[in-house]
């Protein structure tokens, strides 16, 4: 019975510490690599690099296809795209009071993207939309034009703001 050990006792025993070694504490010698093995390793590394380049080329081709498709979608006239996004923006954010929430909407960002491409055209479209639909473009207009045609006493008054911006548009001969 004395020869029988529990697992805990065995793990604490010197025999367990020597487990996996050859009975001594010297470190195992490094494995020598044969010259032909080194050549194989180089070839493998080259193959891996080639595979990576092939994958990168495939990805680039796929991106080209996607960009072509996007360009095809955005091929419509700016006015049409603007109207579509403006309608969607109004429909989906009209109930929100926080201007930050309204400006985070994807359609608003899309319109800002259009403005980055063709700023003057988007300003003209916004002023026309302000005139016909009274949609609130005053924040974007002030950002794009860096102008402030509103007098301090009219801050926050939607009708006065719209009138001021339309007057500004006429003065600048945009509308």
């Amino acid at each position, binding site marked *: 019975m004395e020869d029988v050990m529990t697992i805990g006792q065995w793990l604490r025993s010197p025999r367990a510490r020597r487990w996996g070694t050859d009975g001594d504490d010297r470190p195992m010698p490094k494995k020598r690599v044969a010259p032909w093995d080194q050549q194989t390793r180089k070839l493998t590394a080259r193959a891996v690099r080639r595979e990576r380049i092939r994958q990168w080329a495939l990805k680039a081709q796929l991106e080209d296809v996607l960009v072509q498709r996007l360009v095809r979608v955005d091929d419509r006239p700016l006015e049409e795209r603007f109207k579509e996004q403006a309608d969607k923006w109004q429909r989906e954010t*009209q109930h929100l*009071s926080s201007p*930050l929430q309204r400006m985070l909407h994807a359609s608003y960002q899309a319109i800002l993207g259009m403005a980055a491409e063709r700023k003057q055209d988007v300003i003209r479209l916004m002023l026309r939309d302000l005139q016909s639909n009274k949609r609130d473009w*005053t924040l974007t207009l002030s950002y794009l034009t860096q102008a402030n045609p509103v007098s301090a006493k009219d*801050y926050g008054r939607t009708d006065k703001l719209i009138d001021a911006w339309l007057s500004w548009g006429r003065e600048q001969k945009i509308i």
Partner: protein
Amino acid sequence: MIVFRSAAEARNQLHQEIPNLVTANWRLKSPLDTGYQCIAWAASRTDRVWWPWDHPRFYWPPGFPKFQLLAPVPVSSFVEMFEQRFGYRKCQSNAFEFGFQKVAIYANDLGVTHMARQHFWGRGWLSKLGEEEDILHLKLADIQGDPSPNAGQYGEVAQILKRSWWTAIVRLCLFRSSWAAFKFWVYRRVIPWDLK
């Protein structure tokens, strides 16, 4: 710009925008008006759009801190303004208390999104839904929604404030809100406006 759209049309759109309203008990109180929003309506005003951003698009009472454009607005800035200008105090309960008027501030992960004002006689809560109509809903939860920033919802109630009726009278808020309510009542009676 004021638009008298039919109740059915308004209901269709509001149900899509605020899903909780589908099962809630609510009704239209005013026409669609782009001239003011919920914060102004909580302050009993119907002539300007209130928001603490430093931009001509918005009005914010002088003397209170304004934030840069696109900055999220914390609940504390609204609490400070409503406490100092309109005599409100923080409170815990949203239940009607005789002699007191309450407002609720809604917020999501990015800050304040909406405010609702309790009906003077406690018949529910008055909410101006952005540029859309002013509605009377029974519970604050009726317009609550997803608090994530891109959800397009009001999030949850973050703070309740209350003040006495006497404070509302002294600060002319009762007069202003009664005048607006009278105007809406005239609209409902005089203008051929489909409210069924």
